């Protein structure tokens, strides 16, 4: 028994820590899906856009990438607000296809814009964090960057949850997602509220982008990889609760690393999607869906 635990301690710890990163990758997608009823196919590309923004910021101020959050989050929020206010709000209520097409188009534009500016070279947000490990006694070595990812993700989601439960705007966003018409009758301008929701979601993409950039290498076209992770997190966690999305991320991360441990590294992605398939079969609304 102890030997099994000893053998599994590494994939379990790393899976949970990586799962935290998956949680922050999926949270923005989940919010927009739940609030605006819109599948944002450009979410992954927004994440990679943020990675590049951080890269640019670091050339001006050679600091730890985490400090570039101060610049990247506001910029991403503004980009998100503009996308919703100027593009997506125009086609709300006109069926499922127009918003999908716009988001898809946005994804292609972002990828090619990044390709044009930054060339297809592999990049990473270099920091000493990326290579350090923290020993937990002589029991376990934790990669520091995974731990930082997990903590930043957890803190972000806790702050987000506080925002949704404590502020007028947070409550108005939830009200608009419950009943748009009734929210308008309360004096809430739902289109502006949707734009703020998208700003917030893009802000979380900004956080995710910096963490992803610190943890892995990225190219202009890596966005869709993270889009698929975000999809997985949303499907496993279900809509309606931030904590559920975070837990969905943990399950996906755990499934991937345990799969890689038992079946070999080539099966890491596959085993994640097997869990996805199982959840879709037995609980299509997601494990932690509300309402």
């Amino acid at each position, binding site marked *: 028994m102890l030997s099994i635990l000893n053998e599994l301690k590494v994939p379990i710890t790393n899976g949970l820590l990586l799962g935290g990163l998956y949680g922050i990758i999926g949270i923005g997608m989940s919010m927009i899906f739940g609030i605006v009823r819109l599948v944002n196919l450009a979410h992954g590309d927004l994440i990679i856009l943020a990675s590049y923004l951080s890269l640019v910021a670091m050339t001006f101020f050679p600091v730890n990438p985490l400090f570039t959050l101060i610049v990247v989050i506001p910029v991403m929020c503004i980009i998100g607000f503009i996308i919703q206010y100027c593009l997506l709000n125009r086609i709300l209520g006109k069926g499922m296809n127009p918003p999908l097409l716009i988001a898809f188009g946005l994804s292609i534009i972002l990828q090619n814009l990044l390709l044009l500016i930054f060339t297809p070279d592999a990049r990473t947000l270099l920091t000493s964090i990326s290579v350090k490990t923290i020993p937990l006694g002589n029991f376990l070595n934790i990669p520091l960057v995974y731990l930082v990812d997990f903590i930043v993700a957890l803190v972000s989601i806790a702050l987000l949850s506080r925002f949704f439960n404590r502020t007028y705007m947070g*409550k108005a966003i939830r*009200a608009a997602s*419950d009943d748009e018409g009734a929210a308008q009758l309360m*004096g*809430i*301008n739902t289109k502006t509220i949707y734009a703020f929701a998208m700003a917030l979601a893009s802000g979380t993409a900004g956080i995710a982008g910096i963490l992803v950039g610190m943890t892995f290498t990225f190219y202009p076209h890596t966005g869709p990889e993270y889009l698929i992770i975000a999809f997985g997190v949303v499907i496993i966690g279900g809509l309606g609760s931030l904590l559920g999305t975070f837990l969905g991320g943990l399950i996906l991360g755990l499934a991937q690393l345990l799969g890689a441990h038992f079946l070999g590294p080539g099966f890491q992605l596959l085993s994640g999607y097997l869990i996805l398939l199982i959840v879709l079969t037995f609980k299509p609304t997601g494990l932690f869906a*509300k*309402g």
Partner: protein
Amino acid sequence: MYGIERGSRGLSGNGGSIGVNSLLRVQNIDVFYGDFHALWDVSLEVEEAFVVSIIGANGAGKSTLMNTIAGVLSPSKGTIEFHGKRINGLMPYQAVAEGISMVPEGRRVFPRLTVLENLEMGCYIHKARQKKDKVLRKIYELFPILEERRNQLSSTLSGGEQQMLAIGRALMCEPRLVLFDEISLGLSPLVIKNIYQRVKQINTEGITALLVEQDIQRSLKAAHKVYIMQSGRIRLEGRPGELSSENIHKAYFGL
């Protein structure tokens, strides 16, 4: 206190009301749902501090008229004036800022928000937020059950309690005019009686009310003035005491 100087439209003509301030004046509006002509040349006047009731069968256009006043629909012809200011073409959230608030048909409370959060959404507009605590206390006095259940999700309330919440929520912005759309729908007679008593209480505090109701007797009892609609038109107008039940039935059924 608010004697009615004006008789039916036919007797007094279209001149303004004498001695009573008109709060809402709807003049000759036409409303369409796509190609469907829903309201035909509808005119209506609501005096300050009155309870005015619109009666009509299903599909007569009552809710359409309410939604048009609240800004959900926009008239293709005619004007809507609220204390002298033209308000047609405003969005619903702008109408709230003007002082018009609505208790929508089917209550439409926010199911995943708590009772207190629902009430807070009622005072979302900035000038209402500052008076939140004061108004909230008044609403808890009006509906003590809402204070008791303030931290419950509103989806866990009974139908009558949800209706009280919807009314409380509409009052949070300290409106001058409240539109009550079918507030007795699906509720037991006892609960309906209770809710109408509250509406009366709200009205005595100076809030003007425009009611839509299918129950003719209940409407005649509650209102200072009634309008009877049929097929998207106003068929009859007057104070409850003046209208014979024969005329009311004729107008109601369009005979």
